[in-house]
């Protein structure tokens, strides 16, 4: 790892987070800084841990599937696809091909919406709010398309163990094609604003660098790895869903800029290239959409019975917008709920690469470097631990009473201080 030897022992520690305008989710960075330069950084996640794996081991597989979908607010379908693929391998359920294609299409649409959301957040971290509004304005189109196809903007509830629950019918094709055309010329404008802008280049070039061998050792995934030249993409390496039927290329920055530097700028380039790639994939899959049933086992009650009989362990993986998401599931015969369920979100692997990126940089760069791996902290924190106070649950009235009491106490203290 790139370590910085510092002559002077001066400098002081400061802290960014857990609540800070730059961080959309609670994670705490403790920084050893000297003037503006960062010498050492340490981060503490875990503030948004909700105990989803623990909850998952007390629900049957259909319920767990919707729980998995809510691990992350942005990449819901990736966790659903990964969990469902693991359970299908254990129960040996062959999913009809049309369902594979619909899963991949909605997965790619989610990649477009997630990357545009990230582009907006990154622009806001740079203080470039107009690009934030532009990116999120363009993103509305794919959100409306997803709402049109799946009935909801974020949590699509379209995945079921053994297939999908909603069909993409031919009279929806023109609406999809119209959105894809919109995104093609929107891509040109976004690429200009995010890549050719002088100030963005000044802020992002050679900032937060992750060298190729650092990237290989720390095993980051997704755009963070590809921006450092590591060719890792689950859709290409691991043949699954509809991705096994089409040819794709690893999106590394040299396709556009001709060189790989592994800095924040390259991560922007990688993500924009992926948006363009996703548009192409959606069109290809729509053209090759096979017809056939949507569900291997249409009736949920029959499905539950079959899952109760299944036993074994398997790994389900999917290329989330932020990188590889992996679910390890182990089922035992006669038990409804999974015996073991391990969720590995993409930010889980990308966390460690924060350290080499931030050391040696300025304080001003922390927000953009932290945002450059597109951390999804709610994905990575999954166990909720409530302080074990002995009292029972506080109802709303009690909470209200407590807060009123506290305000009275503060006012009394203030009054005492004003005129002792």
């Amino acid at each position, binding site marked *: 790892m790139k370590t910085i030897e510092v002559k002077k022992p001066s400098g002081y520690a400061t802290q960014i987070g857990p609540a800070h305008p730059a961080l959309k989710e609670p994670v705490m960075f403790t920084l050893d800084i000297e003037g503006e330069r960062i010498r050492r950084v340490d981060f503490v996640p875990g503030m948004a841990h909700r105990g989803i794996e623990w909850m998952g081991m007390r629900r049957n597989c259909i*319920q767990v599937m919707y729980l998995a979908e809510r691990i992350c607010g942005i990449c819901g379908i990736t966790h659903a696809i990964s969990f469902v693929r693991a359970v299908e391998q254990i129960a040996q359920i062959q999913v009809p091909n049309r369902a594979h294609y619909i899963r991949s299409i909605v997965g790619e649409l989610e990649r477009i919406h997630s990357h545009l959301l990230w582009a907006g957040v990154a622009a806001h971290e740079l203080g470039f709010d107009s690009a934030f509004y532009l990116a999120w304005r363009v993103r509305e189109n794919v959100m409306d398309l997803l709402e049109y196809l799946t*009935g909801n903007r974020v949590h699509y509830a379209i995945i079921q163990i053994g297939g999908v629950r909603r069909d993409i019918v031919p009279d929806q094709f023109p609406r999809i094609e119209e959105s894809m055309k919109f995104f093609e010329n929107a891509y040109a404008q976004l690429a200009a604003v995010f890549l050719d802008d002088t100030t963005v280049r000044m802020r992002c070039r050679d900032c937060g660098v992750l060298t190729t061998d650092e990237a290989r050792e720390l095993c980051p995934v997704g755009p963070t790895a590809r921006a450092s030249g590591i060719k890792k993409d689950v859709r290409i390496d691991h043949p699954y869903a509809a991705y096994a039927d089409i040819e794709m290329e690893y999106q590394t920055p040299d396709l556009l800029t001709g060189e790989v530097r592994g800095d924040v700028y390259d991560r922007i380039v990688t993500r924009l290239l992926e948006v363009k790639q996703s548009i192409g994939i959606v069109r290809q899959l729509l053209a090759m959409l096979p017809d056939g049933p949507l569900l291997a086992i249409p009736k949920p009650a029959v499905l539950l019975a079959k899952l109760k009989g299944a036993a074994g362990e398997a790994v389900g993986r999917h290329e989330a917008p932020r990188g590889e998401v992996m679910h390890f599931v182990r089922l035992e015969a006669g038990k409804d709920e999974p015996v073991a369920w391990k969720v590995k979100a993409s930010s889980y692997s990308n966390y460690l690469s924060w350290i080499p990126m931030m050391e040696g940089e300025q304080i001003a760069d922390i927000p953009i470097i932290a945002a450059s791996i597109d951390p999804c902290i709610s994905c990575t924190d999954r166990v909720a631990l409530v302080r074990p106070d002995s009292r029972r649950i506080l109802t709303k009235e009690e909470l209200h009473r407590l807060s009123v009491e506290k305000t009275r106490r503060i006012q009394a203290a203030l009054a005492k201080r004003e005129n002792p």
Partner: protein
Amino acid sequence: MSFPMIPELLGRLFRKPNTNPFPAAQLPPTVTGLLEKVGKGEARLNPPVPVPAKLRGKMTYNRETCIGCKLCIKVCPAHAIDFIESTKKIRIFVAQCIQCGQCTEVCPKNCLALSEEFLNASHDRYADALVVD
């Protein structure tokens, strides 16, 4: 030195903003005051963004055809459905419901369905509007 944002910004100066001003363009002095005026017909709320056909909104429940088989309770991921022993019927808490629609598929009598009603916000989790039974 290139600033590709400038033409886009200047162009926008003479076009309508992209925001849909639902319920009102600017914050009224008092929200309750505005709602009263709307009630009396003096003021009008801007409509929300039009909603696509099969939006998954608030649950609807047909009590007569329900046979109390409790399959919906078995598949509901969010414990949103309560079983009423005395009348062998169910009660759905919309505040807990995550609109996944799994119960609408498992129900043998199709007495559960997702409507397109999405304006379900309320300060009380168990307000009458948020309990379907």
